[in-house]
């Protein structure tokens, strides 16, 4: 139980998707102009990560890992399908995003309208596939740990995008050198926020 909680906290603060690994930067930069839209995107990413990471974990554990097919038959014990993981993970993610899109459209048309094009684009958000690939690389012990890693990473992304959106809303009133306006200053601010998040680095959980 404690291990699960540790993974959760680690993935929010220490291994933050944006500040430690730069995953999901594209939508992070494109959507963070106002707090409202980034709130919606952050929620959607958290939700999709929370679903796809455990599903991909099960897929990895029972089909892809070397020897994972042993539950099927003795003869499959030395089958190694791990080279297929990219294509299967992306297929799971694309179909999950499709599913989430349909559910949101059915039950909350308001949220659906406010997310607009960004909902389908989550499928190609690096943070989602990155979550699954990190899960595979770090060898989590059971599906609960994988779930807490997925949810934690999503919340980390959520915090980061809300933070930058709030700063960008305020920075509109300051006098920035013209050449640095927009993209340039956003990069530099993200860098500074990253340095701030590095203060969590030494913490061992």
């Amino acid at each position, binding site marked *: 139980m404690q291990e699960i909680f540790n993974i959760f906290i680690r993935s929010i603060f220490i291994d933050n998707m944006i500040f430690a690994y730069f995953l999901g930067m594209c939508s992070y930069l494109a959507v963070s102009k106002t707090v409202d839209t980034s709130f919606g995107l952050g929620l959607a990413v958290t939700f999709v990560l929370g679903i796809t990471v455990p599903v991909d974990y099960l897929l990895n554990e029972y089909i892809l890992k070397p020897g994972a097919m042993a539950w099927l038959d003795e003869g499959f014990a030395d089958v190694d399908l791990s080279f297929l993981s990219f294509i299967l993970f992306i297929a799971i993610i694309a179909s999950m995003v499709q599913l989430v899109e349909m559910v949101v459209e059915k039950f909350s048309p308001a949220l659906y309208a406010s997310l607009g094009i960004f909902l389908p684009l989550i499928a190609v958000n690096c943070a989602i596939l990155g979550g699954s690939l990190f899960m595979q*690389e770090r060898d989590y012990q059971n599906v609960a740990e994988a779930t807490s890693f997925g949810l934690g990473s999503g919340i980390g992304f959520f915090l980061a995008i809300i933070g930058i959106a709030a700063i960008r809303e305020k920075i509109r009133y300051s006098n920035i050198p013209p050449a640095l306006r927009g993209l340039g200053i956003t990069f530099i601010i993200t860098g500074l926020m990253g340095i701030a998040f590095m203060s969590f680095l030494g913490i061992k959980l």
Partner: protein
Amino acid sequence: MSEEKKEREPLFSPKNLKLIKDPLSINNPITVQVLGICSALAVTAKLKPAIVMTISVMVVLAVSNVVISLLRNGIPPRIRIIVQLVVIATMVILVDQVLKAFVYDVSKQLSVFVGLIITNCIIMGRLEAFAMGNKPWPAFLDGIGNALGYGIILIIVAFFREFLGSGTIFDIHVIPQGFYDFGYKNNGLMILPPMALITVGVIIWVQRYRNRDLIEDH
């Protein structure tokens, strides 16, 4: 088939050369189109992984641009994203296996970022914006051009980070020992991830200062 078919465009007509040149400067995928930032920053602590990453992206982008361009009239628009993802994922699996076979240590250093080429926005972006509406040869040039534009930024960032952070270039010490004796120290901060963002920010600043058309309102 017809008469006009004979007057084919030369392979390197000015229009085609523009496809290669534009992404290097005024239409750079990273600093202007804001595509593919995710992987660009994480692999730039040293020059060698940055160059391997550039080559991998170039192969994936050029080949999948050509494949999608060949298929473009047969892909139903509703499922095009899945088709594109399958083509890209297949190419990335090939690149990943080749890297693991020939440069294992670099492949370990790049860790998940080779897999993340699949979701690299440059590739999806170029497939959507260019390959879906153009012939294979221009699509190929567009792929090469954009991968070069991506690579140039990667290499500039990696050069500064490796030079200032470790005092080496391609793992060879270039700062003479005498400097260290006088009290010069490597700037350890440059190796850490946040400095990649700040370096890219400065590159954008310099580029926009020299090319005023690119300046945004806010």
